[in-house]
């Protein structure tokens, strides 16, 4: 196959390493797989003892997640036969669908705030990173380090003044407020990462462009940006994942219109206690995009994690 090398592990040690890693990977997936399965169980199956691995799948959890339901009298139920498959599911419990639940809205908020803050972080961050990388800015390194170090503060500590400030400015529980907040939290890391990526682009390219009569703006736009595209993409993924997953600020600063999914999912209550299949369904829908994303973009993502960490 390949030429002999003393550093190439033997076949046996490769086989052993592979087996161990695969076993770990499978064990680590069990909790995730279990939650996804629970989303397709009926409430009774979800809390049965011993826990059921084989069960009759139902979409009840998902229906409960997206709807609110009310109990109705037998006469009413008889007079109004169910029209759709999801109404039929609800009928088994003598209930009718009263309307959509708030989950759709909360999910949409997560999308708006996640993408909004990512776009803003990357837009401002790329400009700033370029300036930090190419121009002499007084105290640039100290400034960046100090700002990065403010991330050492627990989010709750930051939330106290932000809470007061947002109340004054009328930004509490607004999309704009959350977008600005997440951008402010993300941007120090974004600038730091992007500066590293831009530093790697040889200065000669731009100098050549400037000599050819490009302005600074044009050189930035036409030469630097395309070169930094990969770095920008992996930084964007980090910003997006942070905003998507964030909980502490969201739970303290939003309660209604701008509430994202993470503070909402644990509060899904069914009849007579927590509706575990609905909670599991919500968790699945919320986590699945990140998981698919991770698998599809694994090259950039894994490189970005180590790059970002090791650089600091």
């Amino acid at each position, binding site marked *: 196959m390949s030429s002999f090398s*003393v*550093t190439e592990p033997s076949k046996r040690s490769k086989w052993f390493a592979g087996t161990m890693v695969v076993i770990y*990977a499978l064990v680590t997936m069990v909790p995730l797989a279990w939650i996804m399965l629970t989303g397709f169980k009926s409430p009774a199956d979800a*809390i049965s003892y011993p826990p059921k691995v084989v069960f009759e799948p139902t979409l009840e959890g998902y229906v409960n997640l997206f709807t609110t339901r009310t109990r109705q009298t037998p006469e009413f139920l008889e007079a109004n036969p169910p029209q759709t498959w999801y109404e039929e599911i609800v009928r088994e419990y003598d209930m009718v669908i009263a309307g959509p639940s708030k989950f759709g809205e909360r999910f949409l908020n997560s999308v708006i705030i996640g993408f909004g803050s990512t776009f803003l972080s990357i837009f401002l961050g790329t400009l700033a990173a370029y300036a930090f990388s190419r*121009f002499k800015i007084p105290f640039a390194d100290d400034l960046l380090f100090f700002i990065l170090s403010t991330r050492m503060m*627990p989010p709750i500590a930051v939330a106290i*003044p932000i809470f007061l400030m947002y109340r004054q400015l009328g930004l509490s529980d607004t999309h704009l407020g959350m977008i600005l907040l997440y951008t402010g939290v993300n941007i120090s890391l974004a600038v730091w990462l992007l500066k590293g990526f831009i530093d790697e682009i040889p200065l000669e390219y731009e100098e050549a462009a400037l000599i050819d009569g490009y302005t600074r703006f*044009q050189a930035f736009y036409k030469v630097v940006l395309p070169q930094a595209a990969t770095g920008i993409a992996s930084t964007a993924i980090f910003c997006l994942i942070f905003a998507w997953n964030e909980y502490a600020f969201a739970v303290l600063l939003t309660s209604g219109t701008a509430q994202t999914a993470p503070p909402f999912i644990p509060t899904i209550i069914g009849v007579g206690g927590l509706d575990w299949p609905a909670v599991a369904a919500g968790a699945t829908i*919320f986590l699945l995009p990140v998981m698919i994303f991770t698998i599809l973009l694994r090259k950039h993502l894994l490189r970005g994690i180590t790059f970002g960490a090791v650089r600091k």
Partner: protein
Amino acid sequence: MPDTPATRAAQATPPSVARKIKGLSDRAIAWIFVGPTIFLLLAINIFPLIWTIRLSFTDFKANRAGREIKNVGLRNYERILTDSDIWLNMQATAHFLFWTIFFQVLIGFTLAYLINKKFKGNDLWTTIIVLPMMLSPAVVGNFWKFLYQPQIGLFNYVIAFFTGKDPSSFEMLGSVQLAPWSIVIVDTWMWTPFVMLICLAGLRSIPDYIYEAAEVDRASKLRQFFTITIPMVLPFLMLAVLFRGIENFKMFDLVVQLTGGGPGSTTELTSINLKREAFEKWRTGYASAYAIILFVTVFGLASIYVKALNKVKER
């Protein structure tokens, strides 16, 4: 920005003048590019920090905004540092920090070492292992609460299966002895991949020729491991520990969803306690002082640690 007035003006200017403008505008561009970011950082990072410092010397309560604010000097700090309950929270945090880092380093390094054997399909399995750390900690905490339920939860059932104990005989989240471990388990499950990735970067940075030279010198594999692998990976490993340390010192979302600080206050980490003071008891001034103390603690510990790290790097 190809078609702004600035670019059009630049294109229309004769070269000699343009060079002058370019010379000048570099600085202007720098400030235009950096300006918005600086503003945002001041507004979201620096200004709140200064405000927190100011509030920490007062008895301000955010739920009674109209009330007159009294300056109390250093009394908030004094009360926090002499409060024995806070030392209990610090102990809970220290327990959490120590054991999560211990297990994550142990498992993370082992995994990285195994993955570095470059078996077939190792990048796919690496990705699968990495999945937990990409997820929302609050949602993870929430579903682990389900796994930890006595009787119906999978965790108890699996433990019962292997040990023969009755699955309803122990409660991971309800018992004072087990609850601190329950949060360690979940955090380890979630963040071991991070330590693994950093270690992997370290292992991959070791050039082959060092091992080849060792092989020529007939150094045993074990010796190579302790004299080459470990020292070369150590700076990376220490970096991973630094990040996990800072993150877990601030730990809030995962644990608040999992245990809410209970039972009693056995898993009430400092962040959770801070949230109680600030947003449930509304002792804003007191909580601000608390926040500053935490910040100084992390910052101080991290600085000392970074000094040690740099020494290791130099060697």
